[in-house]
Each structure stands twice: as structure tokens, then as C-alpha cells.
């Protein structure tokens, strides 16, 4: 969820309904990292960052994916487990039926993209996955089998193409 204030006022607003879904420090870090990674795009560029904010508003899907990936980096850098971002998004963003006319990507696409990013850059957290038995992670494993198969094919074929996740 993108708060208007995240970009225009450079404020991270913590909504109570989102905060209530946070269960531990990793998930809190996920929530904050996600918002900070968006807000940070408004800090430089033309008109003191106003133009970049406008770009995010105009192309929210594109920058949603970017913010997810940057959030993973921030979490790892700050010493948190990035797998918690998958759990946090799984909890707070229900899967839509389709995303053709939506301002958001399908949650399944976002999660698959985050999973690929973690696998590529921080595989340590997948190998030593402390959230494996978490019910939300289990749900992710159940619903992402096709997407993970696509990732496996990409790795086996050494392809550099972007995967079109479902």
C-alpha cells in the first residue's frame, strides 16, 4: 500500500490495520523498509524530487516491484531476515483476480519476484529459512509452485530473460 504522504511529504505513515498484522521485528522491518524504499525515490531529481514522485504515481506497478527489491536490501543491511517481507506482503495484500486495470501487481507476482531476488542475492536466508513452518510462508509455498518452477527453469537454462510470473 502506498501512502500519499510517503512520496509527497516524505513521511512513512503506519496504519493501525497494517501494524496489527506485524508479529515480530523482522515483519516490522519489512513494513518500514517497504515504505522507506519508496520514499527515498522522492529525495533527488528535478524539482527536489517532485518529478520522481510523480513518476511513481504514474507507473505504480513498475515502482512497486522496485520498492520491494530495495526493501529486501535494506532489511538485510539492517540485519533482518528478508523472508519476512514475503510473509508481511502475504498477510497484508490479498491476491487480486487480475491486475490488468489495477494500480498494483498481483501479489503472487510480487512474492515470486521477491523470492527470486532473495535467491539471487541472499540465498543464505532461503537455505537457513527460519520461516519455513510459518503458515503464511506455507501458503506462499503452496501457491507459488508454478512460479518457482519457472525460476528453476531459468536457472537451469542459464537464461537472462525476465520471468513473466503468474
Amino acid at each position, binding site marked *: 500500500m502506498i501512502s500519499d504522504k510517503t512520496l509527497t511529504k516524505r513521511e512513512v505513515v503506519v496504519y493501525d490495520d497494517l501494524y496489527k498484522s506485524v508479529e515480530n521485528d523482522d515483519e516490522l522491518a519489512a513494513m518500514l523498509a517497504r515504505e522507506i524504499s519508496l520514499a527515498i525515490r522522492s529525495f533527488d531529481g528535478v524539482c527536489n524530487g517532485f*518529478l520522481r514522485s510523480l513518476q511513481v504515481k504514474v507507473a505504480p506497478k513498475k*515502482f512497486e516491484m*522496485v520498492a520491494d*527489491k530495495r526493501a529486501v536490501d535494506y532489511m538485510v543491511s539492517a540485519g533482518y531476515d528478508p523472508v519476512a517481507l514475503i510473509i508481511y506482503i502475504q498477510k497484508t495484500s490479498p491476491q487480486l483476480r487480475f491486475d490488468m486495470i489495477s494500480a498494483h501487481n498481483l501479489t503472487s507476482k510480487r512474492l515470486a519476484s521477491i523470492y527470486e*531476488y532473495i535467491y539471487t542475492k541472499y*540465498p543464505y536466508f532461503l537455505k537457513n529459512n527460519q520461516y519455513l513452518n510459518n503458515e503464511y510462508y506455507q501458503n506462499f*509455498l503452496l501457491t507459488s509452485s508454478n512460479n518457482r518452477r519457472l525460476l528453476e527453469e531459468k536457472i537451469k537454462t542459464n537464461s537472462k530473460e525476465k520471468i513473466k510470473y503468474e
Partner: protein
Amino acid sequence: MNKFLKIILCIVLLSQVSGAFALEDEFADKMLSDKFIEPPETHEVYDYQDTTAIPVKISASSTIKSEKDAYEGQIIEFKTAENVIYKHNVIIPKGTPVTARVETVISNGMNGIPASIILGNFKIDGIESSKLTSSYEKFGLDLSWLVFPLKWLLTPLPPTGTLTNFIKGGHVKIKEGSTITLFYHPNWI
């Protein structure tokens, strides 16, 4: 009593079956089980009072024509463009190899939104990576500063304003020899 025992037996059996349904991450098991992976570097202690930052100019060793040539995880090679001096000592000589990793590739889009490549994980021999700029974003030609005013200007004449949606932003290009500036923070922990 017999009935009670049967119910207990059923509950025990059912709980074992449901326990067996916990999914494993087969993909991660298959790909990572036989690899030794070190935990990534973290950066948990900052000194916000310390603003010492030494500029490190690096130049690209090869050309990337557009973001289409780059892929996430790609290693790009640079060289330091000049000596880096700290406290009257050369800490990084000119020509020292530097590697960076393509973290994220953002394609160009409608409304003049430029493509960009986010570089990170900079590595220089003898310098701790955690003391270097964590990421650098290289943008293509940004036309949105032109598109948005034009769109608003043409709004009274529908549908001409909408046509500006189709103006695409520029591709990213990193030319051989082009320089970017990183910062080395010697006092960061």
C-alpha cells in the same frame, strides 16, 4: 470404552497425517542444499555524527548500450579514475579494479519515464564494501519533465493530452570510460 479408544486413535492418526502435509521448499533444497553460503554483510552500526566521505571516481571498463543488455546479478567492471587520498595517503591508487553488481533493472516507460540501472555491491581490493556507497542509480534520458506539463497543457483539447502517454523515456547507457562517483566513509563501522 472401546469407542473412546477408537476416537483417540483416530485423532492421533489424523494429527500425524496433517503434520506430514507441512510443505518443504523443494526449490531451495534442490538448489542450495550442497552449497556453503556465508551470511551476508550487515551494516547495523552507524555514526550519524560522522560526515567524512571521500569521493572515489570510477570509470567503466566496457560499454553497456542499454538496460536490455544488463541483467540482474550481472557483474560490471570499473577502474578507479584517479588516486583516492585520505589523510595525505593514497588509499586507492588510480587504475585499481572495481566491480559492481547490477541490482535492479528498470525498463523505460510511457510518459517519458526513463530506464535506470541500480548498481550495488561495489568491491575494491583493500576496502571494506560496507564503507562504500551502497548503491548508485544510473538513469536514461528523463522526458517526463517535458511530458507532464505538455499533457496538462493539452488537456483542454481531448484527446491530444492522452497522446503524450506514448512518449517513452530514454534508455540507460554506460559508456566505456564514463565516470561515476562513489563515496568511501572511512569511519563507518
